[in-house]
């Protein structure tokens, strides 16, 4: 198995209570800025991290008081990896046929549940670790060489 060496890392642990995701957001933003990521990318990371922490608090830890959410940040020359780890009272099970954001906005389903879709749009990579033995582990990755994936098509008439 390939092991990746990360030149810098920090860890953060917050109470599993709505509102504390804001403190995690600001701590991780300070780390990412220090690692040289642009303000624009850090703003995306702040939104994605807040969503991921809220998921961990609400769903993974099921709003149980006295549980914790742990956030680990690792950075090397290529990427910034942030892992959000809850204590997993409820394990994430992916939806069989997830609706797209457009379908939801068109009223075809609940307006909730857009967090993961939003995170997917903002980050270069994001997802749950399927083999986590203890609680849900969700990771967010930002690459330094950001690949532009969503170039709007230019129509000439």
């Amino acid at each position: 198995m390939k092991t990746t060496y990360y030149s810098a890392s920090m860890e953060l642990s917050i109470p599993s209570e709505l509102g504390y995701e804001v403190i995690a957001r600001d701590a991780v933003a300070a780390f990412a800025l220090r690692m040289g990521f642009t303000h624009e990318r850090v703003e995306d990371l702040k939104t994605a991290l807040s969503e991921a922490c809220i998921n961990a608090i609400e769903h993974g830890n099921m709003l149980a008081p006295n549980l914790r959410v742990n956030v680990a940040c690792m950075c090397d020359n290529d990427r910034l990896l942030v892992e959000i780890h809850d204590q997993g009272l409820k394990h994430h099970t992916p939806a069989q046929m997830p609706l797209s954001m457009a379908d939801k906005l068109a009223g075809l389903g609940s307006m909730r549940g857009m967090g993961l879709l939003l995170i997917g749009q903002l980050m270069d990579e994001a997802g749950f670790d399927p083999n986590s033995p203890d609680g849900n582990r969700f990771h967010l990755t930002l690459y330094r060489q950001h690949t532009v994936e969503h170039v709007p098509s230019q129509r000439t008439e």
Partner: protein
Amino acid sequence: MSNNKSETKPLEKIIELRLPSRLGYERVAMDTASSLARRMGFQGDRVDALKTAVSEAVTNAIEHGNQHDAAMKVVVLLTVRDDELIVSVADQGRQLLDQNNVTRTPHIEDILDKSDKGGWGIWLIRELVDEVEFTTAPTGGNQVRMVIHLER
């Protein structure tokens, strides 16, 4: 239904931050403490004072306590209570703080004469927060406990 336990014990929430001993990471601690203090309702000047105190304490832990060894951690514990914020900064104690230095007020003439202009940190922390305590942690490292009170 009343719960006697929660009535006697102050309600507190703890945020833990573990940083490598590398200069620059004090900014992460500063921004985290500032974010928390602002949300607790501290005024801007008190938040600025806390940021400076946290920066000094973490810089001391990196430079002196852990001797710049990046593998050694600086642990910052932020404890939120209804009426106060406690920030505790602990290092792994490669070099222990001389207790004779924690209460001394430096003389500017003495410091200007030295090539190293450092030595203001502990005095500065004392001036900036409401309570401060320098101790040796049970695990052997240096520990600084700083408290600011919320005045409503």
